[in-house]
Every structure is written in C-alpha cells, then in structure tokens.
C-alpha cells in the first residue's frame, strides 16, 4: 500500500513559530519518506536538541529525540546494530556544528550509511537566538547584544573535509527540491549530509525567507525579486565522483569548495559532492564478519529456550587454560 504524506504525521501539536523554515523541512522529510514507500517501521529519525529536533515528534516513524549535540553517535549505534534500518538524523546547526562538531567530524570518518540533515538557521533557536556556528562574523541578529564575534563555519566544506561521501545543500522553502535531496541522501550508500538553509523568522532577521528570495533585490525596472538561492543542477553542475571517468574525489571536491564558498548574491543548493567509491562502515565490517548483514547485533539470539547463553566461550577459555 502506497504511503501518503498524511501517514507520516502524528497527532502531536506542532509548536514551531509561524513561518519557521522547519515546517518546510518537516514536509520534505515526510514527503520523501512517503514517496520512498518504505515500511514505516523500518525508518527511524534521530534528532538532537533544539527547535529542529522536535521534528521527530511530528513524524510517524520511530523517533529518537536525544541529547544536544549527540544525535550522530546515538544514530550510529542504532544503525550499526541493525543495518537494515533506514536512519535519518536531524538537528540544529548549533547542535551539529557547535556542541556536536566532534561527532560531526568523526561521523564523516566512519561513513556509516545514513543521512544527516542540519537545520541551518544561524541561531540557537530554542535558547532564544544566540549566534550559532553558521552565523557570519560581525552579523547582529535580533537577540545579539553585540555583532557576532566569532567566524562562521562552512558546513559543506567541513563535511567534505570530514569524509561525508554525499554533501548537499537544500533550502527549507524549496520543498520539492529538498525532498529530492533527501531521497538521494537516503539512497546514498554512505554518510550523507544535507545542510538546509532554514529561515528562523523569530530570531534571524538577516537570513530571512525574504532575503533568500531576494525580495530586497528587485529586477531592474521594478520586476520580480531575484532569488539569492540557485540550484547547482540548473547550471549543469555535477558533483559525482567517477575516478575511472576522470573525475576523482580531489577534483570534485575542489570544484565543490568553489561553490560552497559562494554566499551573498548567489547561494547554491543541490548536490555538491557525491562519492560512492568509498566503502561504508558496514561494508568494511562485512569484510571481517561475513554474517554481519544477515545477523547483525540486534538480530542475534543470545540464549536458548532454557535462557542459557548460546555463545560458546569454551575455545576462548581453552586458550587461557592451565
């Protein structure tokens, strides 16, 4: 039975602020999951803490709302113990790149087959608008007393430097585009990362929906707004690594970085980097444990009908015997 988007909703009251970009991300996630028509039970969303992290409660698949900055390691445990699950991680930019930056970097190194979506709103929403790691140096959003004193991180470049094998950017209010990215990210074999530009109308009065849409930049002659956001695909950019085909990881990454640094007048969305040549953690593990996919940790029996252990430790004791 095909899933509909309505199947992906829960009855939990959604308490995001009106106009919040999180709504767009939520819809995109729900549409992507519905589209992919996976069993709902086989998907799990793991989130950190922040406005964004509440997404799990609004989505009708298993939802693990964890600790601030920690969704990645939680999710990694879930996934590695049962690699058959479809694991999506969501969280804020503060969550993922501030307090969670250490996991972010090391998560890339593992290349576990899951998707990580960061709601990039430039602020710490739930704690009332402090600067997040993506807010630019010198900017002064509503809650700040002084202009931001810390430089921003570029999540895309950081993700590539960390080893994510799929790196993309979406825009919260381009739902159909974002939905596509999310599906690609889920289908990607390895650690996929999507940075989603997310207006926070309550605290980020700089990178607002209007700003992304370029409403301050009217076409000459009083025409339409000229959106800042453009899609990479529309310009023929292709971030796929194909070493045999002459596009090795380094080449693509350098191209991607050139795009990733664009900001201000032109802000690219789309897939910057997509490398399926690197084995996933699961594949690496499978090399060592041929039965891993069939009997991963979570699917093994551990006791017999008498509740006695079935792991046979005798050979190991024999090695220690005197």
């Amino acid at each position: 039975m095909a899933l509909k988007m309505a199947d992906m909703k829960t009855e939990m009251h959604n308490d995001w602020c009106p106009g919040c970009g999180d709504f767009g991300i939520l819809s995109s996630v729900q549409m992507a999951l519905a589209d992919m028509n996976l069993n709902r039970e086989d998907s799990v969303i793991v989130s950190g803490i922040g406005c964004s992290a509440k997404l799990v409660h609004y989505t009708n698949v298993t939802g693990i709302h964890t600790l601030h900055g920690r969704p990645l390691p939680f999710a990694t445990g879930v996934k590695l113990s049962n690699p058959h699950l479809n694991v999506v991680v969501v969280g804020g930019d503060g969550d993922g790149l501030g307090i969670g930056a250490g996991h972010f970097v090391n998560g890339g190194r593992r290349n576990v087959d899951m998707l990580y979506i960061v709601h990039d709103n430039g602020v710490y929403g739930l704690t009332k608008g402090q600067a997040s790691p993506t807010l630019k140096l010198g900017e002064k959003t509503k809650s700040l007393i002084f202009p931001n004193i810390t430089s921003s991180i570029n999540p895309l470049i950081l993700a590539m430097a960390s080893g994510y094998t799929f790196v993309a950017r979406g825009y919260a209010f381009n739902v159909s585009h974002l939905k596509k990215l999310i599906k690609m990210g889920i289908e990607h074999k390895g650690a996929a990362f999507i940075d989603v530009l997310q207006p926070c109308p309550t605290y980020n009065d700089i990178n607002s929906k209007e700003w992304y849409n370029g409403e301050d930049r009217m076409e000459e002659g009083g025409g339409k707004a000229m959106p800042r956001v453009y899609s990479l695909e529309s310009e023929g950019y292709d971030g796929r690594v194909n070493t045999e085909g002459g596009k090795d990881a380094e080449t693509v990454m350098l191209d991607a970085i050139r795009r990733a640094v664009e900001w201000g007048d032109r802000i690219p969305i789309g897939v910057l980097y997509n490398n399926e040549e690197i084995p996933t953690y699961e594949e690496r593990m499978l090399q060592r444990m041929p039965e891993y996919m069939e009997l991963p940790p979570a699917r093994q029996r551990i006791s017999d009908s008498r509740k006695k252990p079935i792991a046979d430790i005798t050979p190991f004791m024999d090695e220690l015997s005197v």
Partner: protein
Amino acid sequence: MPGRDLHIGDIVIENRLQWCIGGAQGSGVDTSANIFSRACAEGGLWVVGKREYYSNIKGEHSYFVVRVDRNRVDALTEGFDVLATFDEETVARHFDEVRKDGGIIYDPSLASKKVADIPTLDKRIKDEFAERFRQSGTITIMTLLEDAKKRGVHLFPVPYSTLLSGVSAKTGEKRQSVLGRMVNVIAVSASFALMHYNLNELESSIDHVFGGRKKLSEPNKIAAEVTYEYMAGNFKDGLGYQLSRVATEGKRLLLNGNQAIALGKLAGGLRFQTYYPITPAADESTYLERYERFSVKDGDKKGSLMVVQTEDEISAITMAIGGALSGARSSTCTSGPGFSLMSEGIGWAGINEVPVVVTNYQRAGPSTGMPTRHEQGDLKFALYGGHGDFPKIVLASGDVEESFYDANLAFNYAERYQLPVIHIVDKAMANTTITLPYFDPDRMTIDRGLFLGDGTPFVLKEGEEYERFKFTESGISPRVPIGTPGGIFWNTGDEHTELGHITEDPVIRDRMMDKRMGKLDLALKEIPEDEQYHYFGAENPDLLVVSWGSTKGSILEAMARLNQHSGKIGFLQIRLIRPYPAQAVIRLVKSAHKFAVMEMNYVGQLADITAENTGLLADYRIVKFNGRPITVDEAYVSLKRIVEGKSEKRVVLTHGA
C-alpha cells in the same frame, strides 16, 4: 663475585611463596611474570598476581608480584619471599620489602651503581635514602643489598652477561638486542632454580607464552637451561622456599579481570560494545574485538559482536544506547575521566528506560590522577552522577570470578528493569592475573525482561497504539526493538507521555517519576539476596567488616587468620549498592558489636552511603588511597587493632611501592 652466606633454616616452606619481578616498562617484566605464573599454574599450583606500572610506555619502573600457593589464593600479602631483579631501580625500590629468609636475585655488575644516578627514581625516595644511609658514604645498590642482608635476606648474584654469553654460544645468537630480552627468562629461571622447581614446567610455559613461535621460545628455553645449570652449580641449596608440582582437579584458567569480564559479557549476550581507549578499561574491548566471531551452540552460523572505537566517551555511551534501542545487548566500558563524560548520556538512558551497561574500571583519581594505579573512588559518583533523579543500578563485583557472572547479571538487571546499570569494578581487578576453575556459562540465566524482540511475539490489540512508556502495575512497560512491525515509538530526554512524546503536564510528570523511580524498589524486592550481598564469617560478630569490590580477597583471608585465634569477625560484602539493601545491612550491623567499613578511597564512600541509607555511622573507617591495593596483612593488622581496642576511628593504610 660477592660471596653468599647460606644459612637457610631447616624448615622448608613448600608451595607457598610470594615472588616479585621488576624492571623498566617495556623491558619484558610482564612476559616474565606471565611465564612465571603459567609455569606455576601448569604445575597445578594456584597463583594470583598483580601488575604495578606507571602511566608510561617505556622506561618507568614496573613490577609484578605473584603469590603461589597449593590452594586457591585471591589476594596478595605484604612483602616478597623472592625478588628477581635485573636493573638497579628494582633493587632500590623493593629491597626493603623482601622478607627475612627471603632472597634477592640481582646482577652483580650493577652493585656498584649509585642510587642517586637512577633517573626514574623519585626524589622523595632518594632523599629518604640519603637520610637513612647517611653513615654509608655514597649509596650504591650494594649499600641497599647489604642492608637487606643484615635483616636476614639472602643475596643471589646472577651474572647476567656471563649467562647470556653462554646462551649466545649455545644458540649462535649474537645480536645484543635479542640477547638482552632474555634477561627476563634468566631472572625467572634463576628464581625457579632456587625454588628447585621442575624445569619442564618452565619450558612448557615458555612455549605457551611465546605462542609456539619457535624462534623465540627455543633460545629462551636454552637460557632457562643455562641458568638452571648455573644456579645448581652456585647456589645448590637454593632457598627455604620450594615449589613442586601438585595434582589438580578440573580445568583451570589463568586470566585477568579484563578478560573475565569480556568473557562474561560475551556469554551474557553482549553483541554491541563501544569504547574509547582508556586505562585500565581498554583491554576489555580489545579482547572482545579479537574474539568478535564465535561459535554458537545449536546454531550453524557464527555468532558475532561488534566493537566500535568511538571518538570520545560521550559517543561511546550514546552509541551503546543506540545499540540497545535497536535491541542488542549493548555496553561500554571506561574509567574515571571517561565515566565523567558519560553522566549526561546515562541520564538519558534513565529517563528513556534504556537497558545499557557501563563497566566502570575505577582507577586512582581525581581527574587524570594516577591512571595505572588502583582506587575505589568513583562509588558516590556512580550512584549520583547525572543531574536530576533517575534510576540506575550499581553492581560491584568482589573478585575476578564474580565479575564474570556479574557481567551477565548487569545485563539482566538492565533489561529486566529497563535502566542503565553501572557495573563497577577496578584497576586491581582488571590487572589481577589469577588461576580459577573454568567458568560455567550454564550458571548464567539470561533474563531479557519484558523485551519483545527475542522471540517473544509483539501483538497489539486492534486499534491500539504501541505505548513505549505505558503505565503498568510493575512500572515496567513492554519494550520492542526499533524496527518491530507495529511497534513505532518515540523517545525523548524530555519528560514524556506514555507514547513517548514531550509533555510538561505536572500530573503525568508525577506518574512518570513514580514509574521510573519505583523500579528501584521493585529491583530490591526481586533481586535475590545473594546477588545483593555476601555474608561471611561468624554470626553475631564482635566486629563486622563492611566492604565492596576488590578488597574482598584480602578481607576474607585476614578474617580467616583472625578468626583462627581470638577474633570473631564477620564480613559483609555489599554487591548491590543501588538500590541499597538497607534492611539487610541494618540487621547485620545490629547483630554485630561494632562495625568497620574498609575501602580504597579517601572519604570512606561506602561508609557514607551506608549512613545515608541506614542512619548507621561506621565505628571505624579503614581507608587507603595511595594507589596500591590493600594487602591481606594490612587488612589483618587494621582489623586486629580494632578487635584489640587499639584502633583510631579512621585508619589510613599506606603500604605499597
């Protein structure tokens, strides 16, 4: 070569001695001790050994003490009967610890070395020697040896280089780097030769330790032979301590605590282990990784477990929780600093009722402390770590054998009561090498509680939604692994409804708190008494000793010694520390005349917790916090003084080098 007075008494002590070998870290002390222990064990003897070392990779002093006995032994005593050395520092650090009638094996070519020149010897010790031997002119190794000799210690100069030349001649090996490594085997051989122990056992041990790599074992066996010959020729009377093969019953293991716990976890159903390297916990994970694939009884497929090295301990605990949510028995292991980083994650497991086991190998704190030294300083932290009130169970094993079975109990509690369990052990246990009877995994029962992922069917009534945190009479809600058809659920670190969604409703909040915290009462009611505590010794004792963890062996032996004579002593080993078995403790303490709490930390943490839970203030607190385990003798003396009415209220034990 300095002569040797042989005035060995008539009485020969057979199959009971304590031996020590020392040397620079990385110089093979460990291997020597291994060969020694195994050789004894192969002869049917029982051993217990302990390694002491610096937080250093190469060069600092380390030593290994092995106690050998014809009966099972669990703890070390004070002093050594034989001290085997091949460097100056070992002599300098340990000559004082050799008992009268014992012996020191040393390299005579080092006898003239100045103590002041030993770079790794603490200034504090040098200063003390300077004071103590201020009459003796320049203090050399010989100064110290002479001093020992005056106390009745026998000196056994063993000319290592001469022996190595012999080995070189026999094997054709000329490389100093290779020959140099053999001083270890020479020291062990010299020891055994003095004890008149069978060379066969030694050789078979050498074979085993070098894992059949003939290139290594053969020359070492030759070194052993050469040494035996030399010793027979020069010290044929040997020493008053002798070792000989005895008969054994049943199969036996020689292993350490890290290995025992790893094996216990493996048998107990662990399938997902995370860790970040830390002394002295990491070896558990490394051992598990080595044996990640194993046979399964009545299964054709291999079983396997996954060990993940994480980027830090926050990741380790949260990843293990993730594994538990997927349905695997999951755990992590760590030590103080890492445990500190886990507080938040453990709290999350508490509010989300996730069964996860943290094995905390205590080491000397606070902070980085003394990473390779021993302490039981994390108890209160294990009990109260993490903000807010949430339930967790704290289980303390008393010895290596217990720790094997407890590894499974920890999982059982975790799954039955759906909460984090801290299995608290320590460095002394981790690094104790001991002979034990084979473990019997069939003595374990695996209890997964209300877990519907291991064969038990998950059925929902028509139109019903699965409520992960359903209010039930027992407070325990049926649990399913992520991915169960029909079993979608939510978790959150926030207070939540039965569905697992965030709520701030004060009424639901109260009920959820009751649900969660009530599980501790349930656990206390259901967990069998002998899993909660062990009581040993006299009924209605004059003195009740209360303790926990690895002090057990020393206390038991000290108690036995005391009870042979005047004393009427009882020993209460508390195993379950949270929930605390207050009623049983009150009953036992009240049955005793006085009670003393003995433990390895500064404040007397168990004593505090006992007061907290029972209102009973310990009459005596016997504590030790210098990083070295409590010996049998320390336990004995401190308890004896209490019995004799000569003890202070707080006694600080200080033995150890």
